[in-house]
């Protein structure tokens, strides 16, 4: 019985037993629950996903009709959730970066303003801000009948912002080719310019050239009349504006709320990251004659990035999960669509299982991407 005293055997043994218990407990719960559901004649399973949904979703990131399936309705919910979270994360990061740097400004007015901004935003629950932004939009802006006509074809009212929509008539393929070609050229120019700068130490105009390379093909194609765009102008319908592109207040309020609350978190993370970079780095780069702006951009921020990335992952996950507060202000995200589905089918356990699964899967995806990026920028010790 010597193997009983083998440390490695015992370690494996305990782990196998622990996993076995978890699996057994999960299986018991699942099987008795479905047994009892069957005994009480309660419908189970995921058949309802292929039934027609029967309700409309007005704000849909992918096309949706009432005759589409319940499964597609849930997909619309997922797309809406991803759309608003992604935009909120981008705006939140850019805004947070600015505020975080402003927090450390030598100008006391700017620093205090940034401090007030951060404290106000992160010390009040997001839900209350969502109610505030939404109420401001629908109470301050006029009803759609008296919409403000900001520019020709641009209307602002408490039903949202309506702008002319661009409909590509012809030349879509040529446009795509020019865009891809321009992007490839820009990338190439930038790589070469960076390599030359590192080799020679001479600053160059690689960035400007790259931008020019990106835009020039599209501009030339436009001059040559290679593609044509139809503008779909909003028109006054019986009650509201039809046609055109609608940005609805529910979406704006949610995006605003999520982006602002994320920016406060990002600002603190950025400040912490910058302050963690040794003072010697600033002094050394000043001694080399770099300006404060250049020091920040070229010396400090790249080093701070390594400290910033892990907590930033957390912030992104929070933004993503907080997007479920959409339900309070009428934006049809995954949770809201699921709630409607639940009400219609009565299959709450399955529906909640679906949206929990989706949140879990997407959160893990965000983590994986951020972890990969973190490994990419981390100090590589050789």
């Amino acid at each position, binding site marked *: 019985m010597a193997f009983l005293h083998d440390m490695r055997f015992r370690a494996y043994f305990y782990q196998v037993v622990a996993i076995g218990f978890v699996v057994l407990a999960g299986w018991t719960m699942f099987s008795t629950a479905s047994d009892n559901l069957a005994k*009480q004649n309660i419908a189970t399973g995921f058949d309802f996903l292929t039934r027609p949904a029967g309700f409309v*979703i007005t704000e849909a990131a992918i096309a949706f009709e*009432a005759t589409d399936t319940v499964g597609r309705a849930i997909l619309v919910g997922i797309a809406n959730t991803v759309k608003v979270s992604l935009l909120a994360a981008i705006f939140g990061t850019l805004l947070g970066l600015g505020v975080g740097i402003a927090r450390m400004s030598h100008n006391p007015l700017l620093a205090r303003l940034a401090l007030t901004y951060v404290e106000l935003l992160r010390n009040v629950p997001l839900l209350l801000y969502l109610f505030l932004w939404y109420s401001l939009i629908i109470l301050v802006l006029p009803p759609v009948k008296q919409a403000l006509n900001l520019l020709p074809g641009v209307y602002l009212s408490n039903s949202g912002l309506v702008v002319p929509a661009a409909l590509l008539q012809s030349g879509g393929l040529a446009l795509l080719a020019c865009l891809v070609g321009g992007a490839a050229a820009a990338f190439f120019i930038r790589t070469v310019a960076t390599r030359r700068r590192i080799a020679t130490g001479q600053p160059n105009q690689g960035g400007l050239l790259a931008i020019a390379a990106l835009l020039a093909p599209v501009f030339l194609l436009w001059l040559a009349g290679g593609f044509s765009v139809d503008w779909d102008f909003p028109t006054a319908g*019986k009650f*509201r504006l039809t046609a055109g592109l609608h940005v609805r*207040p529910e979406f704006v309020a949610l995006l605003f709320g999520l982006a602002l609350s994320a920016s406060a978190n990002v600002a603190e993370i950025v400040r912490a990251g910058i302050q963690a970079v040794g003072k010697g780095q600033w002094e050394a780069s000043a001694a080399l004659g770099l300006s404060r702006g250049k020091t920040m951009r070229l010396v400090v921020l790249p080093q701070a990035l390594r400290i910033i990335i892990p907590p930033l992952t957390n912030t992104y996950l929070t933004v993503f999960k907080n997007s479920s507060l959409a*339900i*309070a202000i009428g934006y049809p995200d995954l949770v809201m669509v699921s709630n409607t589905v639940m009400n219609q089918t009565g299959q*709450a356990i399955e529906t909640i299982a679906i949206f929990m699964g989706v949140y879990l899967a997407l959160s893990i995806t965000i983590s994986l991407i951020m972890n990969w990026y973190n490994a990419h920028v981390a100090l590589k010790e050789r």
Partner: protein
Amino acid sequence: MKQALLTICAAALGLSVAGAASAAGTLETVKARGKLVCGVSLATPGFAAPDDKGRMQGFDADICRSIAAAVFGDGDKVDFVPTNINTRFQALQSGEIDVLSRQTTHTFSRDASLGLDFGPTVFYDGQGLMVAKSLGVSSAKELTEAAICTLPGTTTAQNISDFFRAINGKFELVVFESPDENRAAFYSGRCEAITSDRSDLASIRAVANNPDDYIVLPETISKEPLAPAFRQNDSNWGDIVSWSVWLLMAAEEKGITQANVDEKLKSEDPDVQRMLGATEELGKMLGLDNKWGYNVIKSVGNYGEVFERNLGEGTKLGLTRGPNALWNAGGLIYSPPIR
């Protein structure tokens, strides 16, 4: 949301532990507990909402009391459990509540697939639309292209989608989880119209700054018969719930009220004698006290009294009886004979 998740977890656990509640028979379980556990809505004035003394008031709450009175002879032996609109059926399935009395529409798929049965319709409702008078609209059919606010609950979103599909019109649907946001969006003009059950529209209109500025359009776009629900395969318990409700209706027909019920015990009318347990032993057939009928009327009054007290024209909701009048007064309220 968190609450919904908790309820789901509780329901899943309840289902996985055992179908204990259904095995024992709900009447025995209720009697052994000494209290009826009744699922009601969170806070809907007129149907179920606590008053300033914390006592649950409302039409649905009184239905619970009548069942408790039939079982215990005391209408106050009720624990009211506020149920979430998304998880109310799970609460019933798992045995957390004995009966669900929560403005719940009796529909085919709920009856057939959720492991529950419905009692008699206690309130005939229907989905309607409300608009501002200044909009100059007199029919829901004129509302194509309009934005319409609603709650995600029940089947309102589907009904309104069906309605506009039938007339081949488009509209913008804005769905709110919170009733307050829903109302605010409508009053601010974010939506041209708001849709819900007509009884609910009445209570939304009642809280407007100037209720006269709004009208409920004539169309009723769906049938919403609201009925209490109980677990399937418990016939005795189902009978108790159903007959408690029917007794309220029969009592109104016979003119028995909370005030005159003691007098009516001495009535010569054989129907009244049977209902109140003065003659024969109808209560025993259900496993109840023979005075069950007397106890029900004594604690909540008849159907008409319950209606007027909670929803009638003297209340904030100010609803007329409409289809909820007795059958012999042009309505749909009809009780099978109690004999």
